[in-house]
């Protein structure tokens, strides 16, 4: 009976360990000057094997968060757990975390091979094992044959692969990447995004990635934490973040979004009617959170959800669709689509995208009717 209990307890304990997040931030705040906070009361956890992205504009605290985890900065308050252990106060060289730096930070006096072998040498890995492990990781990042090159003799993309290999070769439980593709041109960036995704899947390692590029974040991540002024606005899957943003900032930062300002005039709990400022046009908007009659609301609606025509709809479906008048500000060509900039009730710059073959026969200054399904809009109460 006792033995059974012990087994049961230990099994339960192991299960608990397995369920536990690999990385946890609990109540982390960081202030460099004691007044302003770079990161404020941060709580997040990253699961094993996850590709987790910290996304936000520059100065939003995402890089600071990464540096806190790497150990180059220490938090003002709060705790960081790695594998269940509090690592605040542990120096970076004892954390066993791989870091890929923004500008590669390759050692200029060492060859490609020696750069990648560096973490293994620091860990006293014997020579034979060392070269086989370096060889293996070189294959993973597709750099075999370049091992004897100097770091000054390789391209930016190759340098990034070396940096990646160096951070992966000692098999750390988690790899941090700080805007690793920021310095590369667009095409190379896309190739390396594919590469990073492939390597992440191949090695099933945990990655925490920092970027300000939302399309990169959407493409790579399992989950994204959206940062704004040191605070996490929303943590969600790419799909969740794109399709159901929780704040107007999230709606505006991820993908393209129009925003119309208005005031609640009536409505039930989930869908309210708002009167758009500058005219008497009324639209239906799904809204989340507490709200009251007369509250100021921002309506966010993505350009691709809007259809437009020069004439009013013949069979209006007011219970399902919104229809508003607008005036064409500009028509621009974007290769695979046309883009119409419109003014709706004096609110400028409301964009509509139309596939190439469906060009509308309207000119600048002419009237346009814009329609979208009520459920595809998002209303946010303005604080």
């Amino acid at each position, binding site marked *: 009976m006792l033995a059974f209990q012990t087994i049961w307890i230990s099994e339960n304990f192991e299960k608990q360990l397995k369920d536990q997040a690999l990385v946890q931030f609990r109540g982390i705040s960081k202030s460099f000057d004691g007044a302003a906070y770079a990161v404020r009361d941060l709580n997040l956890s990253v699961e094993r094997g996850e590709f987790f992205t910290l996304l936000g504009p520059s100065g939003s605290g995402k890089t600071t968060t990464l540096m806190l985890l790497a150990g180059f900065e220490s938090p003002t308050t709060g705790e960081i757990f790695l594998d269940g252990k509090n690592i605040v106060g542990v120096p970076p060289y004892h954390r066993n975390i*791989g870091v890929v730096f923004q500008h590669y930070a390759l050692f200029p*006096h060492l060859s490609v091979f020696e750069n990648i072998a*560096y973490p293994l040498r620091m860990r006293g890995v014997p020579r034979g094992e060392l070269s086989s492990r370096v060889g293996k990781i070189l294959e993973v990042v597709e750099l075999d044959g370049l091992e004897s090159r100097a770091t000054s003799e390789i391209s930016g993309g190759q340098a990034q692969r070396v940096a990646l290999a160096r951070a992966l070769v000692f098999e750390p439980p988690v790899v941090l990447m700080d805007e690793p593709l920021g310095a590369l041109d667009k095409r190379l960036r896309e190739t390396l995004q594919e590469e990073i995704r492939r390597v992440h899947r191949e090695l099933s390692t945990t990655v925490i990635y920092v970027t300000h590029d939302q399309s990169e974040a959407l493409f790579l991540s399992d989950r994204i934490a959206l940062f704004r002024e040191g605070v996490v606005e929303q943590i969600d899957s790419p799909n969740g973040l794109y399709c159901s943003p929780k704040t107007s900032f999230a709606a505006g930062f991820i993908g393209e979004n129009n925003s119309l300002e208005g005031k609640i005039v009536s409505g039930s709990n989930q869908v309210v009617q708002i009167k758009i400022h500058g005219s008497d046009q009324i639209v239906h908007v799904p809204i989340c959170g507490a709200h009251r009659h007369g509250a100021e609301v921002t309506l966010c609606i993505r350009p691709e959800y809007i259809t437009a025509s020069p004439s009013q709809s013949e069979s209006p479906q007011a219970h399902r669709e919104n229809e508003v008048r607008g005036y064409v500000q500009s028509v621009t060509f974007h290769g695979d689509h046309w883009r119409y900039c419109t003014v709706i009730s004096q609110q400028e710059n409301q964009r509509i995208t139309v596939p190439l073959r469906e060009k509308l026969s309207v000119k600048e200054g002419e009237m346009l009717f814009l329609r979208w399904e009520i459920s595809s809009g998002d209303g946010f109460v303005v604080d």
Partner: protein
Amino acid sequence: MKRRVSSYSFFSSSFGRLLLGLYSSLVLAYLLLPLMVIIPMGFSSGKYLTFPPPGFSVQYVQEVVHSPQWTSAIWNSITVGVAATVLSTLFGTMAAIGLVWGRFRGRLLLFGFFLLPLLVPVVVSATGLYLLFAKLGLLGTFLGMVLAHAMLGAPFVVMVVSATLTGYDRRLINAAFSLGAHPWGAFRTVTLPIIAPGVVSGALLSFMTSFDEVVVALFLSGSDYRTVPVLMFQGIRFELDPSIAAVGTLLLAVSLLAMITAELLRRRARR
């Protein structure tokens, strides 16, 4: 690959080239003149220090090599030079790191302070050291000479190493830390190899400073601890035979050797 940019200038014409060549040769000759006097005289066969020498012989070189006075002076110069270089390089490099990486009030002031030995007239330093070392019983000792020369050489190390450190990307240290290197390991395997050319240049300058320093050495030498420049200086006042020139030639050879070694080390470090 650097592309050579060509543009028209006066010196492309043949007359211009001739003028430029003439001018350059004159400058070169001017720079080499003292050597062209000293080296032949070192191999003189005459009895006195005269130029041009009456004939060629190696008798004075041999004399110097076999004279206990000269050999001990050469030994003193080399040991003092090496010891002073080690001290000044060690502390100069440490100071440079603190001055460049440190973030504290009065950093620039302190930097100027470290360069003080360059600004203070050597005679003033020498007098001060003389009076101080007389009290401490360091006159005419190896230790006294090393300490004095290390002080004179350190500013060169501080200057050159600071300049090298300014161009050093400190993120490399964080990279080394993240890969498991302890602070000392990161310094030894990353920082030091990268700033090595600066450290070697500083060390070389420091060694040369000590090796041909005469003012402080004269003040501190006392009666029995003499370096080569001191012995030469005293020698030229009493006995004007060509052995002075022979020693000069030897000094030159040592300097040249030191410079070549340093350059080779630098090239190896760069690879």
